[in-house]
């Protein structure tokens, strides 16, 4: 068996790396994928929890979709694909802010307007990419991710960015939680919600860019909100939901990497299945499982143990 045939999935299309070992953990691209994928999974799950609570999945999805334009620009100029994802996400986030995403009314209109105009540019750039010599795999990488073909030089950047996002969310956790639950309550508590809202948008943009690197621009929202949505169904405490979201996210990405590695031996032989497929499938199954579990075992919205409580009129 030729050495490169051990390389799963998209690696066969886009990677300069040869596979070093017949076991996944001994393979350098797999090690890199596990490391970067894990870091990204933590960061995007942390942002995603607030995306779910704020009901801003659409904004997240829009940021992912426009990532196609950023990724394409990277290829045109020979830059790292993550640079393009980050750049375009930041520009789009700034535009969304300008068009008033912070107001609850008109939020989707602001998002939709920016998304529509940016997607046109993205399609053009993607087309131009595909006409470039030697960039046959670029569209695949942009749309479906490139965990197995991250150039060594880009690894520290991706990890640093993940740490930055995770740290930012950690720092903002309480004000962001209160603001996400209800912005009036946040303001009444003295939280500067303009600041918090913009910081969140920045973290969302970075989280989506990282997620795009892992499972591609189109599917990036799934990694962002999927684990958090499942966790929010299962757990009633913010801290528990947060830990569960991170766990689901990391485990899904890692499982996706291993499955993708082994899928090389599955039909159609010689072409591994993409990581993004497995990751999204696992996350979706987890979410469905969580919903089903709560509907059958727990009550409506996370079980309240014992008999239903009643209003206690005593102390009043």
């Amino acid at each position, binding site marked *: 068996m030729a050495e490169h045939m051990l390389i799963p999935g998209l690696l066969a299309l886009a990677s300069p790396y040869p596979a070093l070992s017949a076991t996944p953990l001994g393979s350098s691209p797999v090690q890199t994928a596990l490391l970067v994928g894990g870091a990204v999974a933590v960061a995007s799950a942390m942002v995603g929890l607030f995306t779910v609570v704020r009901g801003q999945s659409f904004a997240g999805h829009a940021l992912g979709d426009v990532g196609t334009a950023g990724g394409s620009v990277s290829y045109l100029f020979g830059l790292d694909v993550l640079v393009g994802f980050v750049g375009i996400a930041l520009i789009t986030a700034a535009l969304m802010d300008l068009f008033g995403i912070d107001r609850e009314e008109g939020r989707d209109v602001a998002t939709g307007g920016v998304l529509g105009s940016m997607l046109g540019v993205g399609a053009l750039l993607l087309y131009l990419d595909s006409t470039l010599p030697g960039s046959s795999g670029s569209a695949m990488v942009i749309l479906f991710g490139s965990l197995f073909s991250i150039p060594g030089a880009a690894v520290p950047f991706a990890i640093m960015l993940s740490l930055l996002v995770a740290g930012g969310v950690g720092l903002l956790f309480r004000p962001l939680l209160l603001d996400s639950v*209800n912005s009036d309550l946040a303001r009444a508590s003295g939280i500067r919600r303009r600041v918090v809202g913009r910081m969140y948008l920045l973290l969302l943009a970075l989280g989506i860019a990282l997620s795009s690197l892992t499972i591609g621009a189109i599917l990036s929202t799934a990694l962002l909100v999927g684990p958090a949505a499942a966790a929010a169904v299962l757990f009633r405490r913010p801290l528990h939901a947060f830990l569960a979201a991170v766990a689901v996210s990391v485990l899904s990405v890692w499982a996706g990497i291993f499955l993708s590695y082994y899928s090389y031996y599955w039909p159609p032989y010689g072409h591994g299945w993409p990581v993004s497929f497995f990751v999204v499938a696992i996350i979706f199954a987890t979410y469905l499982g969580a919903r089903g579990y709560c509907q059958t075992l727990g009550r409506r919205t996370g079980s309240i143990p014992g008999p239903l409580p009643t209003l206690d009129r005593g*102390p009043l």
Partner: protein
Amino acid sequence: MSDLIAAQPGNTGEVLSLDGVTVWLSGRTVLDDVSFSLHQGQLAGLIGSNGAGKTTILRVILGLQSVASGLVNIRPGFRPGKPGGIGYVPQKVVIGKDVPLRARDLVGLGLDGARAGFPFPSRAKRLAADQMLEAVGMTGFANARVGSLSGGELQRVLIAHSLVSKPSLLLLDEPLANLDIASEQDVVALLSRLCREQEIAVLVTAHDVNPLLSVMDRVIYVARGNVASGTTGEVIRQDVLSALYGHHVDVLRVHNRILVVAEAGLEPQSGDTERQFGAQGDSGAPGEAGSTGPDANG
């Protein structure tokens, strides 16, 4: 119970005053030269019909709404979210069913929501939150998701959330709107107790003056962006309210209830607004609205 909210010892006098406050929104004058004041330990009702400007007044006090002219004086040291600061319960709070947040967590956020970092559990926080939930009769719901609470239950949890930071001024926007009559009386009694025992100044908006009649120290009547303030005896009079509304209104006292009624077509101002409008199609007799009185007093 009396140690729940920090009193401000030796600090009597004015907590809040608005002086000639005018607010424009989208070219409309929503508040026009509004002046009133509130003293420590007073419970004031901010009464007016839909769109009168009640919420706008609260937003001005909180600093969420800028004013075109006029002054808002809040006693120095009052800052939202700080002990001795301002507590606020918004009129409408919608929280999604799947939001991972228990009633206890929401009350806890009233204590430390503005601080950086994770909401790690602590004994002190849990105790303070549970004490507050007990004060509003919601002990049994401490572990329930806030998104699953009924309107009235959420209202109580929000009151606990606003009280847990031990404010000196409490602003409540329509706290009675979601409540059945028994709960309405519970909450009114709770607010009255806070005023008496903890010397908190409480400003409550309502469209109906009646549930608050027995506990209000002051009433601030709002109509068309103007206010008339004073004791209920000074304000809820035919001449004062007629001047405020700009047309003749009658003030009727039926079964210990006050009904403010106007001629058909003009704005009636009491809390029975909707019911009176409903009745007008049939007979238009203002007395009919009084039939809602007895059960409310039961």
